[in-house]
């Protein structure tokens, strides 16, 4: 499923990007080094950290998109950098868990082994 399709299905608001990145998984978390260490390429990343550093990490780690949760807004520098680097940004009113859960169901991801 592409980023645009996921956003449409989940009601995420588009901020930047073409909506054409293929999503393979999900990473949820706010600390940048955890994202760099544990997020996988082509993950949709759910976070509340809407600054330029999140965009830098999403670009370097090849995330499919970053979704800012809890109704928070990406700051202007983040949007500008995302436009420049081709990083796809979205927002949602949903909290991180609910947004991630909705996306996981929509993507039909298999539940993890307990």
């Amino acid at each position, binding site marked *: 499923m592409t980023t645009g399709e996921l956003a449409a299905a989940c009601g995420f608001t588009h901020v930047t990007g073409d909506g054409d990145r293929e999503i393979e998984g999900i990473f949820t978390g706010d*600390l940048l*080094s*955890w994202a*760099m*260490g544990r997020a996988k390429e082509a993950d949709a990343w759910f976070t509340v950290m809407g600054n330029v*550093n999140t965009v*830098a*990490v999403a670009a*370097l*780690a090849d995330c499919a998109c970053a979704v800012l949760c809890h109704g928070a807004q990406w700051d202007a520098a983040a949007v500008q950098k995302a436009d420049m680097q081709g990083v796809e940004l979205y927002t949602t009113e949903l909290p991180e868990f609910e947004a991630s859960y909705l996306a996981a169901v929509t993507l039909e991801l298999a539940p993890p082994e307990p």
Partner: protein
Amino acid sequence: MADDSIRLHYTVPGDDFTRAGEASADLKSRMKKLGLPPGAIRKVSIALYEGEINLAIHAHGGDIDVEITDDEVRMVLSDQGPGIADISLAMSEGWSTAPDEVRSLGFGAGMGLPNMKKYSDEFDIQSAVGVGTTVTMAVKTA
């Protein structure tokens, strides 16, 4: 062939976390243009970004020298910052002396050096208190 190697130099300013990331972004786009494997590009990008952040946050800035050869990308990050008293403690997951201001930006989880080691095929850190720190990382591209 050593003759074919590409050498790059970057300067990382101190205490500017928005500019930290310029070196890794630049190196990433160069590696892409060279057609190097995406997996290696990702490893280099993340390892170098963590290194840049450390130079900015912990060392008042520093220098990065990169050499791209036939089969690897080698990065040497050097600074004249405060140095690290206990390297094995600094290397452990979760250990951080980052100030609150840095944490509020999402950094300072104490995972930087472990990530740099994780994504490098070769990793070395030398440090002396009051003198500075040198980190060497190499990622295989072939």
